[in-house]
């Protein structure tokens, strides 16, 4: 289904595969366009949402990975970088959700990373909430929605998973 990247996620709809998470989310938004639109209707707002989702894609995963695969000075640098990225996102606005009053594309792009915060905090001995309180309020707001809280992975399980990975990779 995904011969090019051989990765998940892959969405199969009407027997046809769609790959790459942000492309899939846009596909879902376009096919089921009458239910809760995820992207705003204004082209500039849409461009902003896409830009920031791309920014999250490019920066956050790798920065997070560095936190649990390094130690000492390298880990300190990784933590700093991670917080800096989150702080940039925190500045994006004062509305309840990134693009307004309703959960949308950009919230979806970022909220899945929230599940990993507990693991990073534990393995990196730091508090993300202390540095980015606004972001954590936003995350908790998203989690109040059942559609989000029931979909996200259990942070404790993710932490255990990373501890296991660390052992396997020999990162102590």
């Amino acid at each position, binding site marked *: 289904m995904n*011969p*090019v990247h051989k990765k998940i996620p892959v969405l199969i*709809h*009407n027997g*046809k595969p*769609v*790959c*790459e998470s942000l*492309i*899939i989310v*846009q*596909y879902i938004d*376009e*096919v089921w366009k009458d239910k809760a639109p995820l992207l705003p209707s204004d*082209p*500039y707002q*849409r*461009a902003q949402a*896409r*830009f920031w989702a*791309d*920014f999250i894609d490019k920066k956050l995963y790798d920065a997070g990975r560095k936190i649990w695969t390094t130690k000492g000075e390298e880990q300190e640098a990784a933590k700093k970088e991670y917080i800096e990225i989150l702080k*940039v996102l925190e500045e994006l606005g004062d509305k309840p959700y990134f693009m307004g009053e309703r959960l949308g594309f950009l919230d979806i792009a970022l909220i899945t990373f929230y599940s990993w915060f507990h693991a990073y905090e534990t393995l990196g001995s730091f508090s993300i909430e202390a540095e980015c309180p606004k972001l954590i309020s936003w995350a908790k707001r998203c989690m109040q929605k059942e559609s989000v809280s029931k979909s996200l992975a259990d942070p404790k399980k993710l932490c255990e998973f990373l501890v296991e990975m660390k052992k396997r990779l020999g990162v102590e």
Partner: protein
Amino acid sequence: MAEQNKVILYGTWTRPYVKRVELALKVKGIPYEYVEEDLRNKSPMLLKLNPIHKKVPVLVHNGKAITESLVIIEYIDETWKTGPRLLPQDPYKRSQIRFWASYIQQVFEALVMVLKTIGEAQEKAIKEVSEKVKLLEAGLKGLFPDGIPSVDEYSKNVTLLDLVILANLGGYEAQEEVLGVKIIDSEKTPLIVSCITALIDLPAVKESRMPHEKVVAFLKFFRENALNSAAA
């Protein structure tokens, strides 16, 4: 009122990501002002417009900045409804075009690695890009089961993917000349070549095409620089 509808593109002529946006503007017939940036000496304006990535291209429309080439092209398509629709209406086809356009980024980065290396490292890079190019060719086969459209058809139906192919892979002949290696050619990758050949003939594209010698000279310079800094 002066800001209304004014379009400015900040770019650098050597950057394919900029070329993509230029092609989109030209193909849609959108008038714009172009500002060439020296990437070794970025202007304060560029840094103000793109503080996050500090890169080109940046499109400014109605005084607002949009960055990241694929984001810009989708913005262009959604704002100016004249000219060809760069993304089709059908959501599945849109997802395919977005997927392959995004994949070409990887193909391009692999091509750049070939330019930047020699010896064993280069052989490895050539192998990697050849595999990626093969996958791209297969992808295009899926998108164009009846072959590449004619120039006439293209002028009405050119998409975001075509612009990306042209911008990132259109210099394949110059690259072949500089490297002495065929990565994209009519035998190995007939669809990619037909696509580029057809697109080059579009009037909007013809007028902005960089002369072959200039591209060759730039690639030689780029390769020399890369090899020198690697050796340093």
